[in-house]
């Protein structure tokens, strides 16, 4: 037990040391800091899903961590999206997914990110009156600019597919376009 504790503490110290080592580099580029963000905006069903439910407002939270000093980040997203319709159809989706974010190597004030990810979405549907987890995939991009060294303001567009064709007999997947304004904060504790 003591030994385990020692291992954990050592790992933590090592991690802090690594992060501290990178801190100097981040001084030059704050966007490479770990980030926490929120987004809010219109979420729209598209393609076949457009016929069953209507556009609404949605939002979510995300966290990102830069993979060392590369152009890549790892991200985790969770969001809440509720779609209603004129009729009895309604959908509530809570996608939880991991993603890889690639920052285009363009030297200017604006930054451009491309994103792809996969995970699971908790889907609750009426009139089926059932809820379940389905695989989901996402891809998209965002454009943003730093607001001081602490935060970034972004516009994001993301396609979300809730995959259901793996179910025998299923003919359709769910297709959604999430757009939104987002703010993320550079969480650099060594600066």
């Amino acid at each position, binding site marked *: 037990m003591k030994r385990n504790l020692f291992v954990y503490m050592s790992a933590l110290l090592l991690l802090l040391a690594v992060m501290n080592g990178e801190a100097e580099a981040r001084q030059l580029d704050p966007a490479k800091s770990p980030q926490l963000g929120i987004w809010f905006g219109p979420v729209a069903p598209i393609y076949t899903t457009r016929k069953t439910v209507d556009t609404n407002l949605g939002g979510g939270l995300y966290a990102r961590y830069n993979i060392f000093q590369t152009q890549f980040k790892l991200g985790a997203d969770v969001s809440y999206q509720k779609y209603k319709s004129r009729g009895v159809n309604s959908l509530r989706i809570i996608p939880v997914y991991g993603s890889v974010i690639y920052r285009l190597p363009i030297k200017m004030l604006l930054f451009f990110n491309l994103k792809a990810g996969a995970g699971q979405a908790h889907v609750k549907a009426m009139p089926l009156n059932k809820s379940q*987890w389905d695989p989901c995939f996402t891809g998209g991009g965002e454009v943003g600019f730093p607001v001081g060294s602490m935060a970034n303001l972004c516009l994001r567009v993301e396609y979300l597919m809730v995959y259901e064709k793996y179910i025998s007999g299923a003919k359709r997947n*769910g297709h959604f376009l999430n757009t939104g304004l987002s703010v993320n904060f550079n969480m650099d504790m060594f600066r």
Partner: protein
Amino acid sequence: MKRKGLNIFGVILLVVGYASCGDQAIFDDMADSNISIVLKGTYESNNPKNWGVFSPDMNDDTISILPSNYVKSVNPSMTGYDSLPSVFRLDVAEVRINGDKFANYRKTYNAPITDIDPLFNGVGIPLKCDSVVRDKHYSKIELYTRKMIFDNAQSFTPESGVFEKEITTVFDEEYRPGYDINPDQIFTLYDTLREEKSSTNRIFPVDVALPGGFVYDGSARYVIEIRMVIKNFLRRYEKVYVNGNKYRIYHFFGLSDWVHDVRQHDDFIGGNCFSVARVYSPDLVTTISGDCAANSYIVAIPASDVPNLSLYYDFDDTIIDRPDDSYIPRQPSLPSKHISGYLEYYVDMEKYDDFYGDYVLNVNKDDDLDTTSYHNVWDAYNDRRKDLRIPPLATQANALGSYILTNVPPGEYVMYELANPVWGKLPTGYSTATVRNVTVTEADIRSGVTTYDVDF
């Protein structure tokens, strides 16, 4: 190191992506409805009786200011007055089931008053709908009708009875001949005196009973059949139209007042859009056919409903009558702009004000022990009207004496052979009718039995 990190991330994605997934095709279920709605304007579920021809009996006793014969004598050039309307226009806003908005699609429909139009030939018109909630018990349909219009409606000047014009109404965004009866169908006369008047509306929606209920399990296709009794149940009413200083007398066709009686000077004709609904799976139905008296009516009632049989034949007006009109206080209207008209109006208004307070209290009493009071009499009348039923399966035999009932789902039925009623009446006489029992089983239908023979 970098590559290893990415590999681990990929494995995590795969695990997260495919662990504990559901087994329901949610998006298919929302897009493909297994339910369809059919709306029929007939009492019969198939093979309805042909339209009758116009007879003076169709003129309601509301026609008192300008009697039909007087109108015809004043306006000899007016042709087509003594005939049925030629078209019925229906504007359905949406259909709900126990409040669930499963068919929020507007439908406008022009139905010629003929025996071949789908609304009147027993086939019905389809209404678009979505799916309903799984495993929920439903017991009623709400049919939201925006407009119900019959043509052959005239406007007359009140003093002379001279024909002014054919009434036109906006329907489907265009002016068309006809009078919209929906504003007059909101209330019955009784509703206008009750406290709950502000929350009462008898036409938007029309409450349609779904005897036996309906639970959708998603395993089969279903048809919801809604029948409104329109064909052969029309009547011509009179109404005073007032717009500022302009007075006109309207003669127009509406639904027959066979459920809630309408009398002279009544402002509303509501409560007469009587309907029934039933649900069946088109993959699991059969037909019942056989021989019976020529032109008679054959109806089938679920055996479980036989204890409630009295609710089916209470349509005869002699069984429940409307309470005496002399009890009803009516707000007087200005009969003419002459001084004598004003004097008459103020005297009537005083009498009305004096009586109205006591009267409305009486109508709205909850603890009324006086069994002869107006309140109790009309409450009993209203309650019994509310419980009236139409058989889920009904048809008229042909002139050769054979009948066929189609789309019969499995169940135990009691069948009655009833006499062909006169115009504007529903078949009655269950207690003296010839009765047959039949049991339609699912096993029979699945083994290919397409017809049950039941002779009377």
